[in-house]
């Protein structure tokens, strides 16, 4: 049996597919463990869902095929929270408030602040505390 992996996904619903219980099917039919970070799914509007799925690679691939049948686009690099490198001054105001270390010092010598998207749990604190407006939400 192939190893269990966790993948962070951002799903974009062009028009609402929210009457369909997609998450239920991910769990029930595709054996995935689902951890939803953030969702904005409103009837008649575009929707977003950022989540971790944990399961075998085969199960995840099968689940993605299933999700695509709903005209939902899948972004496997997450990107629910975006950092604009040009606006970031590397001051570090975000560092003590980022709960997972997604925003961290990349080099002790240059004190450059880096962003590891995979570690981000989308708490959105950085958006509120960045003095330079460098962090933003995709939705």
């Amino acid at each position, binding site marked *: 049996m192939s190893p269990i992996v966790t993948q962070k996904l951002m799903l974009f619903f062009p028009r609402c597919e929210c009457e369909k219980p997609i998450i239920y099917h991910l769990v029930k039919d595709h054996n995935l463990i689902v951890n939803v970070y953030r969702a904005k799914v409103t009837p008649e509007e575009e929707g977003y869902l950022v989540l971790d799925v944990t399961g075998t690679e085969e199960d995840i691939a099968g689940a993605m095929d299933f999700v695509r049948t709903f005209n939902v686009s899948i972004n496997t690099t997450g990107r629910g929270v975006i950092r604009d490198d040009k606006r970031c*001054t590397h*001051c570090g105001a975000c*560092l003590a408030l980022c709960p997972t270390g997604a925003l961290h010092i990349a080099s002790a010598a240059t004190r450059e602040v880096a962003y590891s998207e995979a570690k981000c749990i989308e708490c959105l604190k950085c958006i509120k505390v960045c*003095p*330079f407006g460098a962090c933003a939400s995709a939705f």
Partner: protein
Amino acid sequence: MNSRQNGTSAAIPLTLEQKPMKTYEQINDRIASGKAVVLTADEIMDYVDKKGLTAAAEEVDVVTTATFGPMCSSGCFLNFGHSKPKIRMSEAWVQDVLVYTGIAAVDVYLGATQLRHGDPANMYHPGEFRYGGGHVIEDLVAGKPLQLFALSYGTDEYPLRELRTWFTIHDLNQAIMVNPRNCYQNYNVAINDSDKTIYTYMGTLEPNRKNAAYCSAGQLSPLLNDPSYETIGIGTRVWLAGAQGQIYAEGTQHAGAEARTPEGIPMGGAGTLALTADMKHMNPEFVRGVSLRGYGVSLALGVGIPIPILNADILKRTCIRDRDILAPVVDYSRDYPQKTGRVIAYVSYEQLRSGEIEIEGKKIAVGSLSSYHKALKIANLLADEIRRGDFLLSPPLACLPKDTAMKPLVIREEPK
């Protein structure tokens, strides 16, 4: 100094380290001929450790220092030139941000912390303060078109009573940054002793000392590399956001007499600088509007100041390291607003930069408002300008005071 007290100057015995090695003129000659040896305040310690103090002092001409962070007491004078017909502006707004018009007809002062007209401020606490004076200054330096709206009561020679137009920095006769207080020598570390989140100019502070915030470039900061103001004084040429400017006065709240370590390093705010430079020569990367949730708007600026290595003593002071600089940890929920004067502890910048400090047995995550990354970039840009012969040093015209303390504002009854 003893010599001051007995009124003679000839009696000062110079230590070997204070013995003059170079003059400003000699250093400037070497800069002009492209031969100056320039290091940053981030590099100099290891260099001196390797070469030895005296040899390094002979060799090194200039050490560059820098800082980048929010500096609220900043702003600029703008001159618009005259419209046809003319107006004597009595009220004016740039991008809906109020500017001061209590000066000549088409001169205004735009301050960094001015809010945009209609900003709800903290009416729904904490306010977001997305755009204000600091952001207008950023956009101005970036060359963006800005809207001017001005009103006047009308006079015989200035009859126009209302004006709306768009301009860029290139349309202005002058755009001169004039900052009453920049480059604090040292600064508080802010924490929150209360049980609810507070929103301050040091950022968002979570309850029960969950996080701390500091704001200094530490070992790279200008006045920490010249703690007794031996070379940095009024008239010193500085690098202000890429433009060549000057220190025009001591900064407001300058308090040279602040408590110091035995090595002479201030353990609190202490010195400040009033800076000016032509905004038309500034680099927008180092002029950045700041939004502080629940507090307001401000302006982050990059400043670089060269220190001439006139003798070994001056060089020794530039070798300061983060571990030698202490900052006071202050509670911003009660002690700071109520001006109790309580300092909870002192921590070094080395501890602060580790990302965690320990106060009274509790580990506290640390963030910063000052960008060491940008400061390092500025120190290197300035070093390059000096090496290329494009930036000459100027000796101070007057010294910054070392003996002044900060006075409080006393709330009094009306004098009889």
